[in-house]
């Protein structure tokens, strides 16, 4: 993996510099300027600034960050907790890893600003277990801050501002990236999303008022505080300001990360990645990780921001752009996708537990050339039984990509029925 994105912007400007992961190096590049400005203002003012900036969560749902922060109770009767979601379990996503490994202090500065704004006394950074380097980097950065007495009692010298930060390693389940599944896992329980109500802001980690934000979301915060709302809003789109680290993978010449303003047309994102490999034709793009419906090549002009993608039946998700060329069998893709979601469903809700397995069995049957028209009809119907009816959005995430593939690549499915075999000999191995 490269140590820095191919295309850099404010977030990743110094990711190529090894000293940026040390406190001295970070401060030499102007680090903590945002925090100092935040500490000079009241917590309420900081929440208002984040609200005014229009920052949207970068974890997949795109929820307004400032609004989320304002849900936290204003009183201090119970300890308030920030949980930072570094689980990054969405296939096709690898931006948070880069941020944690190369910009740990950006994340920590954002957390400290968030803690000031929300009155939190503890922050847990929940990092995907496989990300050992990210865990080590964050732990070292936290240790450095404690060593300089910048954390704990009187954080950054502010009396009465006591913040502790804990780096916690996950144990490897997709569902632990869902915010309440993550909270269960953090508490040492089986990673299963919680029913709502109660919502985390009232009853989150260890029963305490909690706000969960993604790693990248926090990394943007110091820049907003330091450079101002207008500066931030001048990047990206009106409804989705700022940049993001698009992670492009699959059949492109130069897979990797590209920090680009939100709203950059998909064609341009792919252009940065060198276009489709070997001059082949593009077949489809999953724009935001495995759970987001595929886009056909006719949609290449779409600006990569939630408000435009949702008009086309898909979502920005995590900005993990997965590119498939003409050799790809979309039934095979459906089989892989449905296998993943079958394997990762936590198994609580009926629709998800039973539906994911059924969908996978149907995809497998079609791919192996043993299916009938009835099976294809079922593959259209079963995801409808799953959508929008479960404790968390996992069942949606499992249903949507199948629906997307059927919507745009029905020919592939029908060809399997007609020929009673897979007509794509060159496609990837199952």
């Amino acid at each position, binding site marked *: 993996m490269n140590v820095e994105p191919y295309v850099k912007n404010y977030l990743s400007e110094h990711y190529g510099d090894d000293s940026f992961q040390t406190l001295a190096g970070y401060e030499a590049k102007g680090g903590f300027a945002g925090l100092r400005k935040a500490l000079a203002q009241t917590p309420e003012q900081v929440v208002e600034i984040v609200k005014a900036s229009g920052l949207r969560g970068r974890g997949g749902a795109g929820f307004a960050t400032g609004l989320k922060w304002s849900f936290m109770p204003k009183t201090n009767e119970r300890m308030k907790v920030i949980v930072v979601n570094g689980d990054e379990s969405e296939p096709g996503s690898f931006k948070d890893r880069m941020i944690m490994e190369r910009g740990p202090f950006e994340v920590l500065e954002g957390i400290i600003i968030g803690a000031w704004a929300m009155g939190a006394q503890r922050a847990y950074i929940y990092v995907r277990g496989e990300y050992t380097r990210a865990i080590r980097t964050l732990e070292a950065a936290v240790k450095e801050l404690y060593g300089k007495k910048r954390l704990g009692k009187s954080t950054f010298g502010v009396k009465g501002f006591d913040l502790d930060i804990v780096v916690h390693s996950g144990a490897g389940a997709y569902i632990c990236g869902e915010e309440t599944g993550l909270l269960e896992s953090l508490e040492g329980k089986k990673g299963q999303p919680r*029913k*709502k109500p109660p919502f985390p802001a009232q009853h989150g980690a260890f029963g305490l008022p909690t706000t969960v934000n993604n790693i990248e979301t926090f990394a943007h915060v110091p820049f907003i505080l330091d450079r101002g709302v207008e500066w931030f809003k001048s990047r990206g789109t009106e409804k989705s300001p700022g940049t993001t680290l698009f992670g492009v993978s699959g059949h492109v010449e130069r897979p990797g990360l590209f920090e680009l303003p939100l709203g950059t047309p998909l064609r341009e994102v792919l252009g940065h990645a060198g276009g489709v490999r070997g001059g082949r034709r593009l077949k489809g793009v999953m724009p935001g990780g495995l759970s987001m419906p595929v886009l056909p090549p006719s949609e290449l002009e779409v600006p990569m921001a939630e408000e435009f993608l949702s008009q086309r039946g898909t979502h920005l998700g995590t900005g993990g752009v997965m590119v498939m060329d003409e050799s790809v069998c979309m039934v095979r893709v459906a089989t892989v996708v449905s296998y993943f979601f*079958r*394997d990762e469903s*936590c*198994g609580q809700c*009926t*629709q998800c537990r*039973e539906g994911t397995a059924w969908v996978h069995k149907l995809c497998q049957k079609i791919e192996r050339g043993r299916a009938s028209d009835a099976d294809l009809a079922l593959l259209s119907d079963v995801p409808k039984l799953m959508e929008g*009816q479960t404790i968390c959005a996992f069942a949606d995430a499992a249903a949507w990509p199948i629906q997307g593939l059927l919507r745009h690549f029905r020919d592939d499915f029908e060809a399997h029925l007609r020929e009673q075999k897979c007509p794509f000999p060159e496609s990837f191995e199952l």
Partner: protein
Amino acid sequence: MPKIAIDSVEYEVPEGRTILQVLDDLGLLGNGVEVPHYCWHPKLSVDGSCRLCQVEIEGVPKLQIACNTPVANGMKVHTKSDRVIAARRGVMELLLINHPLDCPICDQAGECKLQDHAFDWGVPAARTTEPRRPAKKAVDLGPTIVFDQERCILCRRCVRFCREIPKTGELGVVNRGDESLLELFPGSELDNPYSMNVADICPVGALTTRDFRFKIRVWFTDDVESVCNQCSRGCNILASRSNNKVYRFLPRRNDAVNDTWICDHGRMSYKKNSTGRLTAPRADGREASYTDAVKRAGELVRAALDAKGKIVGVASPFASNADLAAFRDLLAALGAGPARFSVPRGESDAILIEAEKAPNAAGCRALGMVESNEQLGRADLALVLGHTLTAEVFGDVRNIVLIDTHESALSARATVALPARTFLEKSGAFTNSRGLVQSFSAVVEPTIEAWSESDALAQIAAAAGIA
């Protein structure tokens, strides 16, 4: 109090309750308003996972689960809209794709919520041709419960029961997704004083009691309301009967007494109705007809009265209030003092089980009877109900007239012994430890000549010539 509308009917409901709780409070659930559910149980924490109880709420885009949605003023709930019915059908179809559908050989058939809801909301034919998920069959989870893993729909009621009521936590769901399985935790077995309740709350045929399974099809039984007589809690029960035989006890919900539970000991006590019974009347050491035994008892009473001898009464905390009252009245007519009684005692817990191992000690006390286990001392005649006192206590008593349900050392020692009806063979009432007077109905007829204590006492009094 918030006002809500359920299917366009307005109700005033308490704050802070969920839609299902409110329906339950109002007595509407399954009784005018159908909101089917598997994982929700009124006495357990909310799980929210079966998704069958989804309802439509005006102004809320997605369907919501009634079990976890708090009521709010002005809320308009719809339980039978097209979207709701479609969601129910979806859940039922998905629950059935891996269910073995072995109803003809499943002991839950007839009282199975999967059958019931499939009948009401299911799709008429399976659309899946995939093989069904195989799993373990007829596994012993412990001494009382047999588990069929294939039939389990993973509602986790049993898991929550073990964690929340006996707080023993033997069960959990392992693995993820469609590989999820209900299992015992390694090294444990389901063996706690309340274990058999999991069979009651299991909505399907996954958990059945070893005692009842395959004894009889439930549609051949009918259930009669009764009260458990094994301790002073007085848990409300249903007795399932068929062919004048009791097949099982089930807990009957009473939120003031036993919620929806009973202990395993109480549940199994139905067997006492047919074992160790005092079946033949006896007089002077020999079997006698019921009429002759009553006649002999009358003679003993008359003789003691005529000789101005001492008559003592020993009551039983297993007798009903009516029988105890008849006993008190007879003793007063005979000029005897208040009856004594004795209560067997044992272990108790903070859930249901109480230390007094009899159902009606409070009834004895209420009638002025005196608790004592001491020697009766010299007496010409003891009139005795039941055998809660040992035979030794009667050392200096010349004659004993005993009316009892079961054989004991005392029935062997008694001058006259008359078989009595058990609480399952008569109607009556017990007063429990909290002073609640709880009535029970006759479930079966006795298979021998036996009368209730009050009837037997009236016959003896008549035989003794007492008006």
